């Protein structure tokens, strides 16, 4: 399928190399995500990493409850669907009985930082050698746009119609900073996918996280991806990605919060 009805036609395509193509580790199924949703981008990055690292035959993912509950319909690896908040417990169960496999969990902000907080803290505390992917878009998308633990002060959601008030609803929680403080975490980083530049960096970080697991490095590798929710934020994808640059990243700055000690 390609654009031939309109737009430019290339005269010397046969003299060109393909420098970017859709990875085979994504299902052909079009995603059910909203236009512009960061989930789709991160799914793609994880699958590209799985393909490039050659770990398709031993990768098992755990899908959360939330917009990405059907992650297994898009990511073409063995996956288990976990109860809300429990993805890292499920991942622990898999990794403990099959320690040679590569296991990753994929969670939204409600899953990881609300109902699953105990599992999040204790999985990291035990230093489970898994990759945790945290999609932080400051809202509960699947259920209609309610406040998340990471919703910023002042942001309007369906359960904070007047904007989040820190005295009534608490602060936006800095769970990734908590993860970095724990001895069980090995690599903790915060990335974004709201521009080509951040996408490139994010992919590098995800690849690093998986490589650490392949190398059997003790401890949990944790990648937070500051993401958008155009539908929940009631913005266009371009506006939503701009909000990340102009507002969200001030509170949740990008970069590595914890890197392994040198020589490790």
């Amino acid at each position, binding site marked *: 399928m390609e654009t031939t009805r309109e737009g430019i036609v290339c005269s010397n395509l046969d003299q060109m190399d393909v420098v970017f193509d859709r990875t085979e580790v994504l299902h052909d199924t079009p995603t059910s995500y909203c236009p512009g949703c960061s989930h789709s981008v991160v799914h793609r990055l994880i699958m590209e990493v799985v393909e490039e690292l050659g770990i*398709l*035959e*031993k*990768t*098992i993912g*755990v*899908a959360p409850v939330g917009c990405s*509950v*059907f992650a*297994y319909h898009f990511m*073409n*690896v*063995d*996956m*288990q*669907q*976990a*109860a809300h908040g*429990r993805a890292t*417990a*499920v*991942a*622990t*169960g*898999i990794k*403990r*009985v*099959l320690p040679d*496999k*590569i296991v990753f969990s994929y969670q939204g902000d409600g899953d990881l930082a609300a109902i699953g907080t*105990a*599992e999040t*803290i*204790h999985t990291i505390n*035990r230093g489970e050698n898994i990759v945790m992917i945290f999609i932080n878009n400051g809202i509960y998308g699947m259920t209609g746009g309610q406040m998340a633990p990471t919703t910023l002060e002042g942001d309007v959601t369906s359960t904070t119609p007047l904007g989040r008030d820190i005295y009534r609803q608490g602060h936006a929680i800095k769970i990734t900073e908590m993860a970095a403080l724990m001895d069980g975490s090995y690599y903790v980083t915060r990335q974004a996918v709201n521009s080509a530049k951040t996408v490139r960096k994010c992919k590098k970080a995800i690849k690093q996280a998986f490589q650490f697991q392949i190398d059997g490095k003790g401890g949990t590798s944790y990648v937070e991806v500051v993401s958008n929710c155009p539908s929940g934020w009631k913005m266009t994808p371009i506006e939503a990605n701009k909000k990340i640059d102009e507002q969200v990243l001030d509170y949740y700055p990008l970069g590595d919060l914890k890197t392994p000690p040198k020589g490790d």
Partner: protein
Amino acid sequence: MGKKLLMKGNEALAEAAIRAGVKGYFGYPITPQSELLEYMATNLESRGGAFVQAESEVAAINMVYGASGTGTRVMTSTSSPGFSLMQEGVSYMACAELPCLLVNVVRGGPGLGTIQPSQGDYFQAVKGGGHGDYKLIVLAPNSVQEMADLVYLGFDLADKYRIPTLILSDGALGQMMESVEFPEYNVEEHLVDHSSWTTVGRENGREQHYITSLHLLSEKMEEINIHLQDKYKKIQENETRFEAIQTEDADILIVAFGLSSRSSQKALELAREQGLKVGILRPITLFPFPSEELKRLAKTVKGILVVEMNAGQMVEDVRLSIGSNIPVDFYGRMGGMIPQPDEIVEKIKSLSKQVKNLAG
């Protein structure tokens, strides 16, 4: 093998599980079953399994879910309040058809309750304690020997039918010490090949396996439910187990499981000494319930006395099963109290009188 050991119920169960090939134990401490967790902590990893003391029962059951999805023999154990916490995970596992062994060493409730034994979780166990239409295979031991024996059976049934199987024990059985002999059991011969559905990585590039209990399309969800119900029917037809003690000439039939069956056995002795023809039907599988055998016995006995350590739970299934006019009486102690043999004999006597009056 062939050696008689003196062991505590909880520990006998744990030892049996290790011999039955359990390779993953995920649990949380709670009285009166913490010894099971501790036995696993001490012994499982040196004998080839993975042990995790989870942060809660909620986490534990989800670890069991994940590990079970790899086709590994796994289990957890808890007591009543902890089993309540696990219900969501159990419902998910029942729907996703994940085999595992669960153990509930029941204590007095409701609420935080007491640590003394009880049978107050019968409904929760056999009617499906979590949401949705599902059943678990429920096995009820009444001795330390059965705490061990039913583990082998439990794992085999769980694997055969892809169903979470529950051992419904109680605080006394968990704590008491009796002699136990572990049978010969070749794990390899009993393991089932689950490779058609397990999530272990797309080996040799095979197509993706995924495990889920989410089926948004109602037509599909109904299909899944019909499949589950068919499975439960098959289990009902093939896996019912019970013990019948002197039932063939009984006038009064005691129906009791677990610890209450032990008191009832003593009561039977005392009653028979006094010339009363008493028998005991002891369900070993609570699901599937021995309805057929009960129906059969209801034709020959004159009255049924159900003895439980609760407010009257299994008695409802007894009444449902027999569908006849013979009196069904109930004797129960709650909150951790154990029915005593002499109390049961009194009830047998009064039921006998009642039955005689009805006849005459």
